[in-house]
């Protein structure tokens, strides 16, 4: 499997990259999705701009109660970072659930998010974390919430010539519990259904619930109805079952040879109940 011919440039700075992207280049990050698509000729970019040599896009920093993850930070770095594990364990759990070790060594935060695969792991976690995506374009930077960033399957609010510069997630507050659980497709590791949960508890009640679901639909989405059902409840087994039953409400579920729409909806409620239970036990 040999891709169509293309021109390749590996700029050292983001400014150089932006100029190349403005003239029609396609950004390449880890390439764990783009290169297989090019091999199958589902993608035929004429000019690849490799962001992998831009040193100041590979970082994990803490500032003002948030973690900033640079676009070319690998899944392995996010998974293994002591800072992320300690301050945002939901994000490191999602990173560690992606693909396999070789994929995590190369695949990047920015690439995965920009690719917006409907079965990717990060979108569920980023929705549950109410993450912000910082976008760099020719005219400067803008920040978009995860809820607004994912538009449709393989479609984000990125405009032509724009790239993800970093992803920003909140540092986990006291009294918070999180969990990411998924049913992986056995060969690829992609989520048939994955559920990320963040809950906060105070005075015996669940005061905040954020639930992100991937694999079920065209995008990783927030399960608003289930969140609402959980908030204010005591978080009993019964409360959790009732809330989990709402995660697929109003969702047009995917159907393919791995799982029918009905089975996916069933899995979503089962995995939601397990993930909520696990998160609530840590809150």
């Amino acid at each position, binding site marked *: 499997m040999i891709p169509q011919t293309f021109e*390749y440039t*590996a700029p050292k700075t983001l400014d150089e990259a932006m100029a190349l992207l403005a003239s029609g280049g396609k950004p390449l990050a880890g390439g764990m999705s783009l290169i297989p698509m090019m091999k199958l000729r589902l993608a035929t970019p004429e000019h*690849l701009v490799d962001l992998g040599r831009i040193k100041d896009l590979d970082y994990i920093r803490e500032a003002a109660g948030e973690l900033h993850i640079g676009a070319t930070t690998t899944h392995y770095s996010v998974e293994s970072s002591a800072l992320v594990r300690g301050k945002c364990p939901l994000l490191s759990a999602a990173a560690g659930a992606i693909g396999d070790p070789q994929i995590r060594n190369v695949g990047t935060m920015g690439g995965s998010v920009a690719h917006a695969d409907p079965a990717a792991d990060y979108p569920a976690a980023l929705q549950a974390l109410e993450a912000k995506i910082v976008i760099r374009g020719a005219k400067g930077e803008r920040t978009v919430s995860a809820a607004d960033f994912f538009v449709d399957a393989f479609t984000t609010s990125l405009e032509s010539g724009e790239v993800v510069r970093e992803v920003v997630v909140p540092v986990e507050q006291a009294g918070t519990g999180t969990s990411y659980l998924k049913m992986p497709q056995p060969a690829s590791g992609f989520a048939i259904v994955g559920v990320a949960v963040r809950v906060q508890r105070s005075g015996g009640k669940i005061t905040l619930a954020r639930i992100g679901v991937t694999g079920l639909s065209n995008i990783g989405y927030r399960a608003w109805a289930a969140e609402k059902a959980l908030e204010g409840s005591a978080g009993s087994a019964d409360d959790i079952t009732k809330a989990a039953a709402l995660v697929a409400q109003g969702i047009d579920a995917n159907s393919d040879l791995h799982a029918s729409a009905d089975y996916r909806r069933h899995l979503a409620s089962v995995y939601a109940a397990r993930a909520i239970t696990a998160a609530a036990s840590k809150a």
Partner: protein
Amino acid sequence: MKINLTINGKKYSPDVEPRLLLIHYLRDVAGLTGAHIGCETSLCGACTIEVNGKSVKSCGMFAVQADGADVLTIEGLAQDGKLHAMQEAFWNQHGLQCGFCTPGMIMACKAILDHNPNPSDDEIRHGIEGNLCRCTGYQHIVNSVKAAAAVGAGR
């Protein structure tokens, strides 16, 4: 496009087409046929090598991305005619049947011990989830990693 890379300690400076996959460069140009092409869709792991100390699937990257990199393939594991402890362990524990997945499997297993010198069975199985053995000889592969760990193959 002219690139420079080091493979198993030896320097190479080829002129490559940007679309040339690293696995094709290794096998067809550099003549290093140890890394295998199984699925060619980044699933089977038979093409696993190390680039700058990290295990990667060489069918999933272009040779130009390895410009300036230090590459280690299965051919570079043995030193001075002596097998690497992981190769020795695969031999002793019958960690292979047909042998097709073995070069990639050994590279992935070496990477497990590089990060974690004493992995549990679960950690070993998690570590080789990117490598498929169609003979389904996984148990002996897990045994091989444990045997290599027991003689201190991890860094």
